[in-house]
């Protein structure tokens, strides 16, 4: 059998990586190549260089070093029992591909993950070597995200943080029981301890050392994680609780939710269905509420006895409909925290309202100019010359503000 070409390997190892939701390239420190004369730069926000027809941003070259794997996680296309085609990049394959793509402005950098072959340390060492060659041999200053192998040694993780902008460890599923059932060889304890280990190093890097005031470099883009949604019957309430715990415990930049997607040659242990995309979307909205709108995880689902987010309307609107007594909110007086709870007002709109109202009394049309849709906001606010009257208590408010039922699914 002839050795596979780079193109053949790329087809297999990009396909194998596509179930990882993150492709983000933000959060790195600002740097450029003017001094080094090499290539690569990172600025405040990452850039999406393309979009696939699944609507997902393509910012990084997201590939696996190899899809051979000794683990047998039911939800994973690369599990050892899968009949998927296998391939393995050399370290230089990955370095060359990254540089070739970067020079043509196709990507912001590399997101490298890997199946575990032989031992976790051996696999992790190869990933670290990719980072080292890019940074030191090729003066590459683009973005590097390395997926950390939880069982790998602390020294290797330390080195990974030296070259990578972001490190991540997937918690895989929202509960330990789920991991035990679907990924029997994985140990949730080890995953937690690895995330804790990353946090320790991130904290240490955030504090200037006593001697030099220089910060030791360790993954300036922080750590992130991903959990699969819909592979087991865990309700949204438990998922959000897990997220709140992860954000609080390990200083995560992001928790990614990945709607369980059917995979070729799937396991009998899993539902065979379309990925629950709307559910995934609602979870991201709820996550946003926790991170940017000041909601506690338990508030978000307080009105839902089944512990599931309403698929028909967004969770902030659902919360408002369940807490009508606090509305309408006066845009000319209400504090920031309260304005952030108004459905349809985002953080930017609230910022603009707060800045503008120092200088003039805001009318409904003023608010309309700073928000997406005044129709959605109107029932929940009072403005100069505007009061929603009794609509807030109306039985039909939900129908009035909820988007009309539409085709949510694929086919």
């Amino acid at each position, binding site marked *: 059998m002839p050795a596979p070409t780079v*193109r053949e390997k*790329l087809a297999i190892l*990009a*396909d194998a990586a*596509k*179930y990882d939701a993150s492709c983000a390239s933000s959060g790195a420190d600002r740097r*450029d*190549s*003017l001094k080094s004369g*090499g*290539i690569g730069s990172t600025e405040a926000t990452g*850039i*999406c260089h393309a*979009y*696939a*027809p*699944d*609507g*997902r941003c*393509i910012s990084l070259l997201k590939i696996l070093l190899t899809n051979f794997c*000794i683990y047998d996680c039911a939800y994973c296309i690369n599990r*050892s*029992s*899968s*009949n998927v085609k296998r391939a393995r990049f050399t370290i230089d394959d990955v370095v060359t591909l990254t540089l*070739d*793509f970067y*020079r*043509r*402005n*196709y990507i912001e950098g590399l997101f490298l993950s890997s199946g575990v072959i032989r031992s976790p340390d051996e696999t992790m060492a190869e990933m670290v070597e990719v980072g080292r060659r890019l940074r030191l041999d090729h003066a590459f200053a683009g973005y590097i995200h390395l997926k950390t192998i939880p069982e790998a040694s602390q020294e290797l993780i330390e080195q990974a943080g030296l070259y990578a902008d972001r490190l991540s460890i997937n918690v895989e599923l929202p509960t*330990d029981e789920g991991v035990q059932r679907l990924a029997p060889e994985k140990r949730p*304890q080890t995953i*937690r*301890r690895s995330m*804790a280990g990353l*946090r*320790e190093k991130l904290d240490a890097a955030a504090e200037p050392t006593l001697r030099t005031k220089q910060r030791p470099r360790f993954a300036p883009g922080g750590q992130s994680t991903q959990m699969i949604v819909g592979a087991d019957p865990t309700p949204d309430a438990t998922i959000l609780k897990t997220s709140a715990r992860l*954000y*609080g415990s390990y200083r995560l930049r992001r928790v990614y939710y990945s*709607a369980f*997607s*059917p*995979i*070729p040659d*799937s396991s009998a242990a899993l539902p*065979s269905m*379309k990925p629950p*995309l709307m559910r995934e979307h609602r979870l991201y909205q709820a996550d946003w509420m*926790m991170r940017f709108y000041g909601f506690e995880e338990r508030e978000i689902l307080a009105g839902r006895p089944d512990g599931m987010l309403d698929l028909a309307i967004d969770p902030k609107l659902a919360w408002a409909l369940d807490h009508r007594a606090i509305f309408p909110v006066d845009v000319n007086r209400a504090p920031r925290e309260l304005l952030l709870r108004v459905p349809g007002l985002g953080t930017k709109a609230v910022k603009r*309202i707060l*800045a*503008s109202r*120092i*200088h003039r009394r805001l009318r409904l049309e003023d*608010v309309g*100019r*700073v928000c997406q849709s005044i129709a959605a906001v109107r029932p929940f606010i009072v403005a100069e010359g505007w009061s929603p009257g009794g609509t807030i208590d109306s039985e039909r408010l939900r129908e009035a503000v909820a988007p009309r039922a539409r085709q949510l699914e*694929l*086919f």
Partner: protein
Amino acid sequence: MGMVEKRPLSAHHAILLASQTDFSGWREAARAMALNGVDPADIAWSVEGEDTGDLFAAPPESTPLPAIPPGAELRVPRRFVDLAEAVICHSDPARFGFLYRILCRLQREPHLLDVATDPDVRKLEEMDKSVRRDIHKMRAFVRFRRIADETGERFVAWFEPAHFIVERNAPFFMRRFTGMRWTILTPHATADWDGERLAIGPGASKADAPAEDAAEELWRTYFRSIFNPTRLKVKAMTAEMPKKYWRNLPEASLIPDLIAGAEKSARDMIERMPTMPAPHHETVQAKHWRNRPAETQSDGADATSIAELRKAATDCRRCPLWRNATQTVFGEGPEDARVVFVGEQPGDQEDIAGKPFVGPAGRLFDAIIDEAGIDRATTYVTNAVKHFKFEPRGKRRIHSRPNAGEVQACRWWIERELKLIRPDLVVALGATAAQSLLGKAVPITKMRGQTVTREDGLKVFLTVHPSYLLRLPDDAKAAERERFLDDLKRVRTLMDDTL
């Protein structure tokens, strides 16, 4: 974006700018006009070489700028200058007059830019956003093609921006592709970097750019493979990658087929029955997992050393606290320690490190026992409850007190630690530790400084938890620290007495 305002037919002042992005020309003219109170409607702005759409019109000419009255000054917020520099790159021909109008309004309303709800300010912000978006899309969608000749390799791209952004955006490409020689061709202008110098030249045409690059086939392979057909969301794609950009993107030609085939590939995946495990699976299982040492779940009852006990506690499920915590934080210290200190529970830092007494309260504790003359190396420190109990609050965790059931469940471990160590004295730090050691709630503030002897003969000295000191206001802290130090000095005396 439509025209902001029509060019006045009979303006008193005509300003001819040197180029579409001539900010300094605009600034100089606008200053002179504003300081003379010229009405925005009385100025006609045009650009050198610009197509006015009227073949027979004479090329525009500038009228002389009025003299600036002596001592007159024009003040604007810094933010306006930033916005104007960006908006000058907008393709709307009326932008010069519009910016001048805002400049005039700012003289009467200095806080105008803070009024985000004002229609002119909205419009200004929208135009700025449109320019920034175009800049961002250029950074995203420029696709270089490599050419090699006798002088080495060069990377050339053809791009069609919506606004006049090439000059403004070129430094980004210079910072990023410093080690390459590159040229970006656009209809309005060309940016060129030879490795040392950035040059802006006249516009070009698509034919001036290379027609292909061998790497594009690899890139298309990647684009095809990274797409998940079960998640088709065409609108989400086109919202961020509008079709107008497709003609210069090598990967875009794949999109129609990917969309057309998505439904079938998704259905195939869903309907395909799970197959037999791959042939190598058995080998992998046998080699890596079958002979993994069985995780004997000892409950610690028969542990003969602290190390064995610690290992048994790793997977403790005696109460639900393990669910949210990172790990069991077991006691630490020599097995023949003569004194054992028992705290309440691990905190945030202890949970992360997996070691007791390493957080702020632990550091304070270390300092005070040192002052009391107790050698830390001869002591064993542990907690009444071995998992961290907390409530997440954004990026932090707020300590919550363990309840009686959790304390009771964890006595399993503390009692075994004490049995193995057989210390002369145990120090209960705080109410939770006292409750655990004595099996009942104890009023700690009343009984602190006392030694209680348990039925089994073990002496338990009662005092407060060091974290109590951390929560006190500064004026009360010094006195309480002294009291705690006195308690620990008594502990040292008790240790000496039991010799």
